[in-house]
């Protein structure tokens, strides 16, 4: 017997204790963005829902136009418009139950308003009279998050806490394509998947992080594919197809509610306006690209579907426009009133009780203000 024979036959085996953890195949997104409008799937869509989405889209577009106009009139410090992305904004608000929570980013004031928050309160941050203008607990909407992706772990933690308490609550977190490069995006998705937390992550891929196109942001096949690495399903949807976005979001919310864990959704859309009113988009993109996306407008897509199926006529279109004009007029009027400001507020709410040092600084500012008033009186 040779030494080799004594050792026995070589049998290759996997490393000890190794086993496949999750089958990746069911987690993979579709090859193309899922669409409903203009496809056979549209026939199954609830006409009432489509009409509701349409009315909200028209309101949403008018809201974006009005808010942008308010920046030019000096009534808003800045406005990051969601023009062209209204389908995502509106569907995000409509897919949730009242008890659920929304975690918006700064571009999502439309979703916040569609959820029921007073538009003046939603725009407080951008007007600049305070940071968060609304009570987060009133409509279960977290403060608008400016540091990208940082609101995602909050959504995971809140949904985790709700589940620990036995409450039936789903959290929907909104983020853009640029934000998916942030570490907090990774950490939030990982925590959510490990804990099987009832959270839905909605990525609006609008093509640009200010000026940087997606190609410079990621080498992933799609952003939805990133889900697979965490062990959660990824879904790819046409972000300008309101019926499709609503359906995919609704599925993910139901899946989460039923204990199925988180879902990552990439909605493919386009930021028609510049990053904000302070940005110049002509420096990084051409008109042809914008025009191609204008032809894929979320309102037009839905309007065509509804009119072709006889669910909407000229009078209906006109009525939606009139409602939107009335909303814009109310918003204009209210935003044209100066916000009441009290500099003493600056020292409140830093802590439950101001520290002795803050009390001293508050007294200093009060004295400065009184001196200003006296000076004014003398003059």
């Amino acid at each position, binding site marked *: 017997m040779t030494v080799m024979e004594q050792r026995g036959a070589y049998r290759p085996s996997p490393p000890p204790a190794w086993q496949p953890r999750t089958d990746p195949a069911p987690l993979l997104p579709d090859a193309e963005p899922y669409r409903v409008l203009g496809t056979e799937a549209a026939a199954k869509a609830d006409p009432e829902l489509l009409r509701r989405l349409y009315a909200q889209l028209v309101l949403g577009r008018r809201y974006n136009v009005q808010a942008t106009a308010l920046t030019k009139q000096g009534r808003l410090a800045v406005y990051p418009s969601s023009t062209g992305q209204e389908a995502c904004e509106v569907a995000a608000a409509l897919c949730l139950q009242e008890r659920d929570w929304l975690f918006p980013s700064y571009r999502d004031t439309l979703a916040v308003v569609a959820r029921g928050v007073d538009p003046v309160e939603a725009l407080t941050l951008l007007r600049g009279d*305070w*940071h*968060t203008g609304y*009570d*987060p*607990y009133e409509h279960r909407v*977290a*403060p608008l998050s400016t*540091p990208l992706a*940082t609101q*995602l*772990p*909050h*959504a*995971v*933690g*809140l*949904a*985790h*806490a*709700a589940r*620990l*308490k036995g409450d039936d609550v789903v*959290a929907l977190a909104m983020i853009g394509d640029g934000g998916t490069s942030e*570490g*907090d995006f990774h*950490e*939030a998705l*990982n*925590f959510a998947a*490990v804990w099987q937390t009832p959270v839905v992550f909605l990525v609006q891929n609008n093509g640009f992080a200010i000026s940087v196109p997606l190609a410079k942001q990621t080498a992933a096949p799609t952003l939805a594919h990133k889900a697979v690495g965490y062990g959660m399903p990824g879904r790819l949807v046409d972000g300008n197809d309101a019926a499709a976005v609503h359906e995919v979001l609704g599925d993910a919310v139901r899946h989460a509610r039923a204990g199925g864990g988180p879902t990552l959704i990439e909605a493919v859309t386009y930021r028609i306006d510049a990053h904000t009113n302070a940005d110049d988009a002509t420096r990084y993109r051409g008109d042809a690209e914008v025009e191609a996306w204008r032809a894929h407008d979320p309102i037009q897509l839905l309007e065509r579907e509804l009119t072709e199926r006889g669910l909407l006529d000229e009078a209906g279109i006109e009525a939606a426009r009139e409602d939107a004009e009335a909303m814009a007029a109310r918003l204009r009027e209210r935003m044209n009133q100066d916000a009441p400001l009290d500099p003493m*507020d600056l020292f*409140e*709410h*830093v*802590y*439950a009780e101001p*520290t*002795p*040092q803050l009390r001293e600084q508050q007294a200093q500012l009060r004295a400065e203000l009184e001196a200003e008033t006296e000076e004014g009186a003398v003059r």
Partner: protein
Amino acid sequence: MTTVALKPATMAQALTRALRDAMADDPAVHVLGEDVGTLGGVFRITDGLAKEFGDDRCTDTPLAEAGILGTAVGMAMYGLRPVVEMQFDAFAYPAFEQLASHVAKMRNRTRGRMPLPITIRVPYGGGIGGVEHHSDSSEAYYMATPGLHVVTPATVADAYGLLRAAIASDDPVVFLEPKRLYWSKDSWNPDDPQTVEPIGRAVVRRTGTSATLITYGPSVSVCLEAAEAARAEGWDLEVVDLRSLVPFDDETVCASVRRTGRAVVVHEAGSFSGPGGEIAARVTERCFHYLEAPVLRVAGFDIPYPPPMLERHHLPGVDRILDAVARLQWEAES
């Protein structure tokens, strides 16, 4: 009259007991962090909590500090009272964005509607022979962030009392644990540990008349040792343990300096833009006419924390403190 049974206990035991009692008293208190569950934490501060309260109350998280603190923010939004453990001072840096942008600001951003009662436990400081990234004194970063309370115990009793106060606070508290004191023993009554010190009060650990040593955390015991050694030089030193860096107890500190007329601030953190600069400025602004000499600082050098075999040269010791005391312009009196 009942006899109080004082027993020797370590700071680590007192911290564990504080967490346990807080969790028993309030079901909203949840502990989360790396290795805090099955292992009981690398310093064993959370030992036994997962067993007693279950994995949902004391949770091993994925290894991601921003995720831990960010998740805790969401939990606090929903009414829980999370206590997160950052494994080491320098490992807490990934969580800094969550801390600075959300934890510290949420109450203010929402006009008080969304307070975040989160306790962030951070083992800090050197003197344990740790290799790099295990011995930072990171308190200045936290102190410079409005909206946070920053506290650090120096005794076993304070470790319990301050941690209970931190968890009970409706404001976020960065709770800095001097890791080289984890195994220090004190006489403590574990049967009656309920004393919860209010956050924001310093304490005079040793009364004296010659000069005040203003210090906190791991440097308190060094200062007490220095004060004993100073007797041979004819100096009777007072030692003030700040306990709370934010809010800062100007009253106790300034009352002491006005009595003694001289002050030295002692800490492990570097001196440039360190806590001592702020403290010296505050004391000078408030006690100028009582001061016989400039307020001096005895601190770590302004270098990245040294490798373990050199750390004793970096850490403020008795000799460096006494050298500073000697420079407090005593000759003017003679």
